[in-house]
């Protein structure tokens, strides 16, 4: 078979390297700007089994960088379309389509099947989720990510002193730290470069070729053609943020809402609601959620109501939202901020479960 001749004649790759690739199972998360080039080169190189996980469908604005797809593919599902294209080109590759976005509930069963994961996702929530799951399942993970003209690359859970994403960035950014989650610009060739760097690391790691980029974070800048490599050590603290087992992983909420939600402490929220006339402190939990709160100064308007009808907020300048843990209120604050950019909309950090919540201390009778 001549399909792989040009790589099997390489002395340090050889037929042994090729056989290792043929036996390998690789999952690519996201068939987008990073996934398209890495999928193409992994399949071309002869990786035996490739999984493609993406719940999105192709839109016209994807075409500058998602090079597996063309004008005729607009509207089609990404994972299935990518698999069809690759299968037609390379009938010897075994392709699995996972036509969904990965969630803490469905991801463990999907990832378990594979030897190596490539993260080509486009949001922090998925990045932290895949990282944590790969730590739990002890799967090597090749992370690629881009921003406008720059990219970053790292290999996690591999080598003698394995690192993971949380050794570099301990916790996800708050939604207030992500200025604009809507599509930012990107020059199409940039994810082509970073996605191919991911494919190169994958081929090295699987075949034993060369030296894998372990314990490093690599930056690439397209405008300056500059590479910048940073050494990264494992940080014992980072493990504390990763769920201890699959059961707690499945229960963890990795969603990060985009927008401009700002959080506020209980102390400040009470101070504002008492002293600023145009402030409203709102319990957004749904009717019937326990414990019931009847403190003066707290209004009850469930999130489901506020999403439909914001009339009650018309005259309010400072909106202070809380829920049980602070997650729903953060989500709602971000959405309301889009509707009312001129208002100050805050989510009370930690919700009523927060130790500093006066409501919490009252609930426990102290």
């Amino acid at each position, binding site marked *: 078979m001549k399909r792989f001749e040009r790589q099997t004649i390489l002395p340090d790759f050889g037929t042994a390297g090729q056989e290792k690739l043929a036996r390998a199972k690789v999952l690519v998360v996201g068939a987008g700007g990073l996934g398209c080039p890495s999928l193409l080169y992994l399949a071309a190189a002869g990786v035996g089994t490739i999984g493609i996980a993406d719940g999105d469908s192709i839109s016209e604005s994807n075409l500058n960088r998602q090079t597996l797809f063309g004008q005729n593919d607009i509207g089609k599902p990404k994972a299935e379309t990518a698999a069809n294209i690759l299968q037609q080109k390379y009938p010897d590759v075994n392709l699995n389509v996972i036509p969904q976005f990965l969630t803490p509930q469905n991801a463990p069963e999907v990832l378990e099947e594979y030897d190596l994961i490539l993260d080509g996702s486009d949001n922090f929530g998925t990045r932290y989720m895949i990282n944590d799951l790969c730590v739990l399942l002890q799967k090597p993970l090749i992370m690629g990510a881009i*921003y406008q003209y720059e*990219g970053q690359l790292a290999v996690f859970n591999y080598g003698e002193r394995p690192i993971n994403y949380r050794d570099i*960035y301990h916790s996800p950014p708050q939604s207030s730290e992500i200025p604009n989650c809507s599509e930012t610009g990107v020059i199409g060739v940039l994810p082509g470069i970073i996605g191919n760097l991911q494919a190169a690391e994958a081929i090295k790691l699987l075949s034993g070729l060369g030296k894998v980029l372990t314990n490093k974070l690599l930056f690439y800048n397209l405008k300056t053609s500059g590479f910048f490599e940073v050494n990264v050590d494992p940080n014992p603290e980072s493990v504390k943020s990763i769920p201890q087992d699959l059961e707690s992983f499945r229960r963890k909420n990795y969603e990060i809402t985009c927008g401009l939600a700002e959080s506020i402490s209980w102390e400040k929220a009470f101070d504002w609601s008492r002293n600023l006339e145009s402030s409203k402190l709102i319990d957004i939990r749904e009717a019937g959620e326990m414990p019931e709160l009847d403190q003066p100064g707290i209004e009850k308007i469930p999130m489901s109501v506020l999403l439909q009808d914001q009339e009650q907020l018309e005259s309010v300048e400072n909106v202070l939202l809380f829920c049980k843990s602070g997650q729903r209120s953060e989500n709602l604050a971000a959405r309301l901020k889009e509707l009312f950019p001129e208002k100050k909309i805050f989510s009370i950090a930690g919700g009523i479960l927060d130790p500093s919540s006066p409501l919490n201390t009252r609930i426990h009778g102290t």
Partner: protein
Amino acid sequence: MELFKIKAFGLLAEKLQASEFDFPYHKDTEQLLNALKESHPELQSSKFSLAVDKNLVQQNTGLNGNEEIALLPPFSGG
């Protein structure tokens, strides 16, 4: 007084309007970070890690003044 050479990446370079700039000496990374955030308030709402001479900093680290500092934001795009 010694000046640090500071490199900024991604969104931080955009916010600071410079991918490389000089900054006054501070004796450790904690003080340097506080001073940076004070003189560039736009950094307060940003998440980033810090490298000293291309080594990622995970705890407060002493500085001489001739180190190269890098401000490294996470990227999320794919």
